[in-house]
């Protein structure tokens, strides 16, 4: 028996019952706003009441930024490290401009890697992210040493380790956000 196409009822939300099911456009606002908002909100995590004896809280803004960059090359423009980094500087307590410089340099490094190693797997991306996280955190320590007295760099090791181990989780959050971003 042949079932007419009009009889097949796909489970949809009630509100979308009468919308066309094909040729839908993605929302431009969602496509742009989700990556930007997620990075900025991740930068703002430091304003929550989290108190630690040393620098222990991973730089969530940087992790989110690197995840978007490595998971979706070409989504964030090459210069986006500067505005995102300056936004992060407002909340991180580092001298203003430190993340703006370091994130932008990280972005350029990823761009160079992208032109050399084009097809990469997830582990290679994780390795790149790990190296960049280490470099940015040590760079932040050095910059903060230019302006203020700073402790020894060993104090950063737990934070670096924690950030590297947290990267896969952040990539998964990014992937979820990405499928929401591109959903019609």
């Amino acid at each position, binding site marked *: 028996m042949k079932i007419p196409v009009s009889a097949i009822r796909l489970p949809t939300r009630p509100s979308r019952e009468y919308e066309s099911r094909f040729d839908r456009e993605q929302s431009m606002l969602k496509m742009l706003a989700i990556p930007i908002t997620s990075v900025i909100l991740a930068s*703002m*995590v*430091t*304003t*929550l*009441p*989290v*108190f*630690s*004896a*040393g*620098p*222990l*809280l*991973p*730089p969530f803004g940087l992790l989110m930024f690197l995840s978007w960059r490595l*998971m979706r*090359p*070409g989504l964030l*423009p*090459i*210069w986006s*490290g*500067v*505005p995102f*980094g*300056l936004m992060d500087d*407002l*909340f*991180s*307590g*580092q*001298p*203003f*401009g*430190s993340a*703006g*410089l370091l994130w*932008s*340099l990280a*972005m*350029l490094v990823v*761009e160079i890697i*992208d032109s050399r190693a*084009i*097809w990469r797997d997830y582990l290679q991306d994780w390795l790149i992210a790990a190296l960049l996280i280490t470099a940015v955190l040590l760079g*932040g*320590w050095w*910059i*903060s040493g*230019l*302006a*203020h*007295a*700073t*402790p*020894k760099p060993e*104090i*950063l090791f737990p*934070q670096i380790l924690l950030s590297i181990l947290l990267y896969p989780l952040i990539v998964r959050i990014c992937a979820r956000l990405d499928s929401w971003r591109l959903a019609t």
Partner: protein
Amino acid sequence: MAPPPHRRPGFSRKAQYGLFATYVVAIAGTIVAALLLTISVVDPTGFSALRTFGSEVTAPVARVVNDARQSTQAITHNVSAYIDAASRNVTLEKELKANRTALIEARALRVENARLRGLLKISDDDAQQVAVGRLISSTASSTRQVATLSIGRNFGVERAQPVRGPAGLIGRVIETGPTTARVLLVTDSENLVPVMRASDGLPAFSSGLGNGLVLIKPLNLGESPFKVGDIIITSGNGGLYGANIPFARIIRKTSDGALGLPFADPANTPYAIVMKPYLGEARAAQQALAPDGETKEVAE
């Protein structure tokens, strides 16, 4: 994932120039960020307005979350108080009896002290409190140890005012906004506090180590005179931090000093008191007569 093919724009001049322009913008942006960084390293106050704006904007969320956090802590504390209550009650009663005698003696000493001060005509400018707030967040991801206070300029909080909690000294105010202020904690490497040993008044300096501990260095040279368990209090020298504020307990001896654990834990302090700078009026009077001259106080 492989990058999209936009980096090989083919023969289109427009696409080629567009790609080139993004690289130019990226490099220029990096240079601008480096310049901003240079400015903020040379003049750390320069961008404090922006930072203040950031903390003002996020303060409402931080306040709500902090309230929730503190009430959760109160619940767990109340529940754990029931466990083992009877035996603890007995111990506490014993302690209370022992302490009552010490308390009476201390009260007598205070009266005597006031009388002696009256005889010597020492006018004590007592550390007066400006306002009481709470610590609502901290820069837990940076090597700097800066916390955000829930009150600001509207409550009379100003730069270079000491902040203490019920347990001990927390730090000093370095930036103020209308409803928030930033506090440099005593555990920051830049924060130097003149202190002394409570038992004999041995003068020392404390500097933060950035990992939640402070390094206590005695003024006199030689072998470290500290013992594990020594109580360190502020000495009031220099006139910023008031005298006799509980500061830290020695937990380890080093070759030329000792490591101390501050009494005030920013994560656990129920409130923070902002105080007037100790001997602030005397210093202002001295500055009016003989200003510091070339040596300007470097702002945070």
